[in-house]
């Protein structure tokens, strides 16, 4: 079963609790635009990795709108997001999220928000929908967050 850590380590390789508390569970993902002619996403030879926050407090996922535009992600919907400034209409983009450490590729919908401009260190927020099929263990005592992607048996046909 593929396993990975979503916490932080100090220079000696030990879990570092202060950064986990400040930043939150973070994994590296590839954001891949949907392919034009095939269903399986093209993983580029030298893909750029983004930091993604595993945001268990959110149902929906978000992406930095400037990143979405630079990657040419297709807009597939519109969503109204309510914040301190009242409700605002935001584009919803589609992309494939590749989690190399877990060997997972999953298409998802992402509300486009200004994460970087707002001082957010993550370019992607992964909401609860992305935890489908993943086991997540948050060990606040040791400062470790473990993600596992079990291979589930196929449903009976």
């Amino acid at each position, binding site marked *: 079963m593929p396993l990975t850590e979503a916490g932080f380590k100090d220079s000696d390789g030990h879990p570092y609790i202060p950064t986990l508390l400040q930043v939150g569970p973070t994994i590296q993902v590839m954001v891949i635009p949907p*392919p034009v002619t095939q269903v399986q996403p093209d993983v580029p030879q030298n893909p750029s990795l983004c930091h993604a926050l595993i945001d268990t407090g959110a149902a929906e996922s978000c992406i930095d709108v400037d990143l979405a535009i630079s990657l040419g992600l297709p*807009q597939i*919907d*519109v969503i109204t997001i309510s914040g301190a400034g009242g409700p605002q*209409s935001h584009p919803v983009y*589609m992309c494939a999220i590749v989690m190399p450490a877990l060997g997972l590729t999953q298409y998802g*919908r992402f509300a486009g*928000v200004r994460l970087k401009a*707002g*001082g957010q260190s993550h370019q992607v927020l992964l909401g609860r929908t992305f935890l489908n099929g993943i086991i997540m263990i948050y060990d606040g005592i040791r400062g470790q967050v473990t993600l596992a992607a079990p291979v589930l048996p196929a449903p009976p046909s």
Partner: protein
Amino acid sequence: MEGTSPLQEEIEAFENMKDELLRHHNGKFVVFKGKELIGAFDTFDNAAREAIQRFGNGPYLIRQVGGSTGMPLPASVAYRPVYATH
């Protein structure tokens, strides 16, 4: 981030069929291309793969029937402490 939607036709078609969609496909992810309902799928991933196979990068609408069309700003974005320096 106000702006015009490139999916106006698809969204109008979805709204026009909403009652019927709720009756027959509640909870499913539907794909609209123009005014046409392409299909209803159990997961977003399946809807996305069908849409890509048929229409590439779009435009098309993928929306969950009965799902929310609004959301609160995630707390991780809404509440970012910035401490005064003086």
